[in-house]
């Protein structure tokens, strides 16, 4: 299987997550558990023998879902409710809901209403990250989640099995982080769309299957020669719950941009942090949850000693990025609230950045292209003027 075949397999799952889940279920006869982004520990559902998959925004237009959720909810929540209302989630045996955003809570209620027959497991995440009680309360949450899963599946989820799943998930994350390293060095010249397919499919596919393919992909790039980046080196930031539309990512790169790093959820954010493999597995998951916010800070979490903007500037120095494009999903409140801080920090650091607001309903790509091209021209001319 060559590199393009592997990426093609990832792309298939990324483009049709529910189709993949149906085929997996038919093949294995096991349960599929959907979950919300962004901090659900798939390791637990995996250890319970189910397929954990992060539910994805669909690229279909929102239709009957309009009758359930107001249009000022973000595209992800509206798309999820629409998919539920149109019967697209039939393959799911249960859905895990987290509470990291008030819109997700609204969406959870709407989906509960539309899918009365589907088991809903609610999972509370502590949002205040550096209080003395955060670790303990997070452990309680994860323990409760494990208990609910055991009740639902009718079998215990043993510590040893959770550790095994943890090791598998960690090795998958490590492989994908290696790809990020190689992309930064230039030895794995993956496009942003390819990178999205790779990471997004790891949220959906059977972890062992995905890891086996990722191993082959990484091995194919090891010992490669670093190709010099031809375009302007940019970092992509933002977009939490939903993946940016592939056509948007492709358009950005068509404007003479080489994406050298990102903190997108369907990117580095998802794979940034490993779960400790030793000790109590539930305490390890709680530690992982807390470490994720120091690994790649998230505006939905509260942590006084962590700054997203400082993280971004540091990451960009390491990536030798010339600027950043911020992708903000329309009505994403956590991002909207935090963005002014990022803007201020970037202006102070004299680091160019461009904000693009994205919409589920699609965007005028030609007009956006003009904005991205202008941004590229500004950065290049500024650099030429300074040289």
């Amino acid at each position: 299987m060559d590199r393009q075949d592997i990426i093609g397999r990832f792309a298939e799952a990324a483009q049709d997550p529910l189709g993949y889940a149906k085929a997996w279920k038919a093949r294995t006869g096991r349960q599929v558990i959907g979950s919300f982004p962004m901090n659900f520990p798939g390791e637990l559902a995996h250890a319970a023998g189910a397929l954990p998959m992060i539910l994805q925004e669909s690229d279909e237009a929102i239709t009957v879902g309009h009758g359930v959720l107001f249009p000022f909810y973000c595209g992800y929540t509206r798309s999820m409710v629409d998919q539920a209302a149109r019967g697209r989630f039939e393959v799911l045996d249960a859905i895990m809901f987290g509470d990291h955003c008030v819109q997700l809570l609204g969406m959870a209620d709407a989906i509960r209403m539309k899918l009365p027959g589907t088991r809903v497991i609610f999972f509370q995440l502590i949002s205040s990250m550096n209080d003395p009680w955060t670790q303990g309360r997070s452990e309680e949450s994860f323990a409760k989640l494990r208990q609910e899963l055991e009740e639902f599946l009718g079998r215990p989820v043993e510590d040893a099995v959770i550790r095994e799943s943890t090791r598998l998930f960690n090795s998958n994350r490590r492989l994908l982080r290696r790809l990020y390293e190689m992309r930064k060095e230039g030895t794995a010249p993956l496009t942003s769309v390819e990178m999205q397919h790779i990471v997004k499919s790891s949220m959906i596919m059977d972890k062992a299957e995905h890891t086996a393919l990722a191993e082959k992909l990484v091995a194919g790039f090891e010992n490669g020669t670093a190709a010099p980046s031809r375009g302007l080196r940019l970092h992509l930031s933002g977009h939490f719950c939903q993946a940016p539309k592939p056509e948007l990512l492709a358009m950005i790169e068509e404007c003479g941009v080489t994406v050298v790093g990102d903190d997108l959820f369907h990117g580095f954010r998802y794979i940034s942090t490993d779960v400790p493999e030793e000790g109590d597995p539930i305490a390890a998951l709680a530690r992982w949850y807390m470490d994720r916010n120091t690994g790649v800070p998230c505006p939905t979490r509260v942590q006084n000693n962590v700054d997203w903007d400082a993280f971004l500037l540091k990451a960009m120095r390491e990536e030798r990025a010339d600027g950043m494009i911020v992708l903000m999903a329309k009505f994403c409140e956590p991002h909207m609230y935090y963005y002014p801080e990022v803007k201020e920090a970037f202006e102070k650091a004299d680091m160019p950045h461009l904000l693009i607001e994205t919409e589920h309903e699609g965007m005028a790509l030609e007009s956006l292209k003009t904005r991205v091209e202008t941004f590229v021209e500004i950065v290049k001319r500024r650099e030429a003027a300074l040289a």
Partner: protein
Amino acid sequence: MKRYVMGIDFGSTTAKTVILDLKGKRVAHAVAHMGAVSGDGVKASIKMALDQAGLTQADMGRTVSTGYGRRMLDMADKNYTEITCHARGAVAMVPGARLVIDIGGQDSKVIAVDDNGLVAQFAMNDRCAAGTGKFLEVLARAVEVDLDKLGELALGAREKLKISSMCATFAETEVISLLAEGHPKTDVMGAVHAAIAARTLGLVGRVGKKGPVVMTGGVARNPAAVHYIEQALDMPLILPELPQIAGALGAALIGLDDYRAEYKHQITEAEDMAREEQMAEDKACIPGCRGVPELAVDPREKQPAPRAGGLKSLLSTLQNNL
């Protein structure tokens, strides 16, 4: 080395061409109206400019395109966005300008320019064409007034009406409704221009209000748009003599920069002679004395004659014998 550069602004409703000489002096410009994405219109504007200057495309050292159809021109060596080009052209027309408002056929943009004349920030309409030339075109049709006379008509507005919708189609509905209520066309058109001004002010707010402010693009020729934007901004707008060609001029100037950078080590024969003459003067031990062995300068001659046995004479002999 060639002696001219060309800038082409392939806009959505008009095509503009500017030809500059290597000193940056405008030798020709042309504006051609065209149909949607029409290659004929752009060809017409190029031909008009070339004919005006008595030149051919082969005389151009660099051709840079901008505007909506910038990627569609094969003869362009490079293309830049209209934001970069309008900023460059507007600052060349009005040195010291810090804000450029450009309202074209299908988009409107506000560009903040830094101390070096480079784009610092920009904002543009990214959802719909409300507040652009197309918006005015649609509404002119709705009130059955010639587009060129729309501005004059709107300047006569007495009563302040409000057009609340920012969608061209919904605004048309509002206009029809106001006319049906018996409001005169002048007042209704005044309200339309006030709506454009409010939208422009919103874009200005995104990049920061500063002056001097230059207005470019086709809508700058509409006196009511200028009046209402000045009122909304509470600042005067500087209108270049030819606001429509700012983008093409900017494209030509960027082409000129590129061309000069590429040929910075090459000079014309006249420049070469001037340098040698300067060197001769610099070497003179007595002021006014031109006693330099390599050049025998007769002040009555326009071009100094190579001295027999001098380097230039030897080179000339060599070239003739090759």
